[in-house]
């Protein structure tokens, strides 16, 4: 049997969901034998490949690069999973939405800066005016809330998907920690 082609993507989040993924611990070995990890912050591939079976996406959409990435990933992925509250709701990254972006940047890069005052304009993607969850821009096939989703929950999701089922998380997951 062909191995499932799995990817993970890290957008505007704290990497906690990826940490939780690694917290699956020794069960990772069971999963590893059934999958091929084709793209992830955890592996060295630079290009997101075509024909990915499942992509776990951590983080909200906060800048122009996130927007481009998620559109491309969506087009190349069969089952797109919003992993964790940032991807599902916007969560902490979206707390800046209650303010005007220019004020937020001013607060961070001028008010509280002691050197090189002013927001960066080169070599970093520009922030979007509002942070949005994935499904406001692309179709999402499965929502896995949690901050972070527990290792057990992520293991359950992967196990079910690998068994060819869409997992029912209604009693297993909730917003927050």
């Amino acid at each position, binding site marked *: 049997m062909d191995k499932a082609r799995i990817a993970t993507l890290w957008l505007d989040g704290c990497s906690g969901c990826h940490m939780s993924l690694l917290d699956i611990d020794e069960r990772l070995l069971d999963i590893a034998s059934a999958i091929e990890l084709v793209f992830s912050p955890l592996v060295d591939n630079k290009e997101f490949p075509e024909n990915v079976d499942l992509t776990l996406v951590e983080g909200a959409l906060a800048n122009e690069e996130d927007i481009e990435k998620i559109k491309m990933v969506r087009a190349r992925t069969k089952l797109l999973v919003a992993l964790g*509250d940032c991807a599902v709701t916007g969560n902490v990254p*979206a*707390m800046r939405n*209650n303010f005007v972006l220019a004020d937020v940047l001013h607060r961070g890069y001028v008010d509280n800066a002691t050197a090189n005052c002013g927001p960066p304009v080169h070599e970093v993607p520009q922030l979007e005016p509002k942070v949005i969850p994935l499904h406001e821009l692309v179709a999402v096939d499965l929502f896995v809330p949690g901050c972070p989703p527990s290792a057990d929950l992520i293991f359950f999701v992967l196990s079910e998907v690998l068994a060819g089922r869409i997992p029912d*998380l209604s*009693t297993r997951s*909730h*917003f927050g920690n």
Partner: protein
Amino acid sequence: MPEISHYQVKTLTIDGKEVCASEHQTILEVARENNIDIPTLCYFNGLNGVGACRLCLVEVKGNNKLLPACVTQAQEGMEVTAHSPQLHEYRKLIIELLLTERSHVCAVCVSSGHCELQSLAQKLGVNHVTLPYLHEQCKADGSHRHFVADHNRCVLCTRCMRVCDEIEGAHTWDITGRGIRSRMITDMGEPWGDSETCTNCGKCVSVCPVGALVEKGKAVAEMTKPNFLPYLIQMRGKGQ
């Protein structure tokens, strides 16, 4: 002549189950007595019902409007539907509307894990919000010595107002504005810490279902609420 009893038992059905109600019992009370679970958020056992959250809306045969079970008295022969796919969708939508209206960020909330909005979302299967978030900035009032009122997390259930009025007798809390502009206020809109009527009893904090009224100095998920009202009602019932 023997005294004529006005006590009357009513029979009705909820979700097809035959149930009995005593006089003045609401549909919600009868349902709970019979282990029929109707979700609620603004309802608090011991306080007067107001039908604010609309989560307990039920269908009553012959009535073309949905009725809030918490303030609708059970009547003889009623045929109540408390659970249907359509009611479930309405309840999910109410939770979604609440989640979009203010800033409910469970990950950084002191009440996470002890929050009725959070647990209702899970129970009703709201695993994402299909409506756009409003991201409106509300004020947080930290002027009180012991407590904080963060209106970004308020669901306008008015439990604080009712407990303060009906149990404590202070009526410090009230509501101002209309519709989406509604806000809970202390006294005439003064900072809570300047309130002349607040007795600092903390009952409002105890009954708040979310993280809007909390004790100072709590970190994420640390705010647990004591369950004191049933005790209070029990003691009152004994005439103490």
